[in-house]
């Protein structure tokens, strides 16, 4: 049974993720006025927001320890937060600062925090094989660590995911594949790209358990993920877990969403897993003030992280040449002159 502290942790992670992204939107759009220019402002580049996905990150990661590995997709913030990634350094990274997680080299799609074994990749489904590898390492070393790869429902048609299911099943690895089904892959509705009703059905082709959570109630996610994580930790192999989430916004900032029926957006926005969890907390006897206090603390944490990040120095141009390799290599200089 889920405990009150667990409910609180999930709630705080979800609220933090939502508030965090709301603040990112403000920062992102600042400097992109009056005309939107993706390369302008304090946060340039693509920005994929996870509003509506929070229950997935929170409900899965609550079962994880720092030595468990998580790989995220292009839409990683809510997962990173729930996995305990350093929020300040993550924010500094998104702002492209030299004290960021990746010293400004990765940006929002490529966050690496080895302290809590979190990484993400912007290529669809390509976080799956490395998660499988982390699970393989845990098995070889005889630890009970597990690994989790998150992906979107649009990623279930990609070879890298499908091969990973088979590899994990036949090697009986402690890994979860978590599909966040938000119904859309950019502009493509899921019925357009696959004939299975639910992504969890992919599991049937590879003889591993496939489980679908048909709601984004964090408590439902908690239950299903808990079972899958236990299964993995106990040496009983991988699970494919699918969670119905909702895309409250465009695919990325600037997405005109002209392809999407207004009604669909409305429905996604109505189903708010955060408010639902707030109600659950109340039902469990947590006072309204307490819930509000949690929101306030999350907001403070977000503001702190953003304020801290914005104070951080930008990397100097020469840093661009560092970190290609761990064991440094003499740079090539054209005829003696660095070109």
């Amino acid at each position, binding site marked *: 049974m889920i405990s009150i502290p667990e409910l609180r942790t999930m709630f705080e992670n979800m609220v933090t993720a939502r508030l965090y992204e709301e603040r990112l939107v403000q920062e992102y759009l600042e400097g992109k006025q009056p005309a*939107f220019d993706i390369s302008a402002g304090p946060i340039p580049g693509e920005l994929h927001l996870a509003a509506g996905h929070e229950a997935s990150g929170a409900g899965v990661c609550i079962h994880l320890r720092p030595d468990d590995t998580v790989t995220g997709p292009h839409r990683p913030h809510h997962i990173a937060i729930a996995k305990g990634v350093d929020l300040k350094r993550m924010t500094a990274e998104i702002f492209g600062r030299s004290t960021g997680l990746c010293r400004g080299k990765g*940006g929002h799609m490529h966050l690496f925090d080895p302290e809590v074994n979190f990484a993400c*990749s*912007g290529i669809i489904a390509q976080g799956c094989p490395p998660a499988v590898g982390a699970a393989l390492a845990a098995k070889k070393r005889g630890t009970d660590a597990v690994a989790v790869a998150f992906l979107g429902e649009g990623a279930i048609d990609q070879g890298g995911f499908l091969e990973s299911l088979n590899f994990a099943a036949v090697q009986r690895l402690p890994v979860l594949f978590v599909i966040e089904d938000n119904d859309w892959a*950019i*502009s493509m509705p899921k019925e357009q790209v*696959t004939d299975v009703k639910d992504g969890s059905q992919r599991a049937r082709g590879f003889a591993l358990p496939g489980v679908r959570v048909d709601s984004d109630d964090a408590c439902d996610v908690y239950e299903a993920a808990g079972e899958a994580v236990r299964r993995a930790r106990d040496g009983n192999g991988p699970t494919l877990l699918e969670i119905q989430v909702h895309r409250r916004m465009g695919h990325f900032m600037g997405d005109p969403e002209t392809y999407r029926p207004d009604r669909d957006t409305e429905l996604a926005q109505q189903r708010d897993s955060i408010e639902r969890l707030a109600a659950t907390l109340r039902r469990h006897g947590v006072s309204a003030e307490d819930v509000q206090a949690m929101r306030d603390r999350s907001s403070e944490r977000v503001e702190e992280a953003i304020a801290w990040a914005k104070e951080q120095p930008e990397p100097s141009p020469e840093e661009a040449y560092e970190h290609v390799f761990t064991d440094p290599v003499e740079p090539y200089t054209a005829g003696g002159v660095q*070109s």
Partner: protein
Amino acid sequence: MSTTTEASTAATGRQLTMSRAIVEAVAHEMRENPEVFLMGEDVAEYGGIFSSATGLLDQFGPDRVMNVPISETAYIGAAVGAAQAGMRPIAELMFVDFFGVAMDQIYNNMAKNTYMSGGAVSVPMVLTAGVGGGYNDAGQHSQTLYGTFAHLPGMKVVVPSNAYDAKGLMHSAIRSNDPVVYLFHKRLMGLGWMPSPPGPKTAVPEEDYTIPFGKAAVVREGGDATVVTLGIHVQRALDAAEELRSAGAGEVEVIDLRSLVPLDSATVVESVRKTGRLLVVDEDYRSFGVTGEVIARTAEGALDSLRAVRRLALPDVPIPYARPLENEVIPGTADISTALRSLLS
């Protein structure tokens, strides 16, 4: 239909963005030839993330403008199969950076089947992809990878630098009986959300016309140094050349390669015979790529005339995210000017 090789500057009248010019060519070919169709992620309702297919769904319907699952191996390989069956598919790889999930179909089937069959089959398809950085999208979404495709035999590789060329090259690509990798720089497309520099929007004739592959364009004449480049760096090279002229520092010839396969080395060699000084600029990784090849061909063809050589490209690092870092590694106009001054000194 008219066939012309005149440089874009010759065209006058209606101005189009590069994306509009590309879509116009595709629409024309689709109207003329029922075997032409387009497949890609988000090419239907969305019209292509980089507006390479805007409005095509409305004109041609979902059978000819097809959204596909995020399965690049499956749909690029399906394009190979359809092309071998005589159709003329256009397959869009959203970002060229995603080539790695589908490279076997691209280089072992699409590119080689004509040769491995001794000419028994042809693979008349176009593989389009958005390329390039300059908007802080980091290491997995900012590459050009021109050289990776050009190195492997069997694909023609074209890289337009402006709307006029983009349209003519697209007509040529679709009509080609060979696989063509058509790489458009995102920053040249004229997207509302990613402003282009002024160069790529040009006058574009309404009617169809082709531009042959393997003919570089001398987009500026000059006798003191030769800059060989392509894609987005053409305008930057022109700007740098202009700056040098204003400063009285020399007259720089600028060559837009337009295609890498075939590569018009003759035009480069001829220019270097005249100028004796060569700067090669591109937005791909420096080593083992385009800049090395152009220098090597010039050394093979005009070593006697070659008095100085330089290159500017990504300095063999993945493309970093933060603005100061990305600016450092992607050659800009100022970098070209500096290199030219050093070349001329």
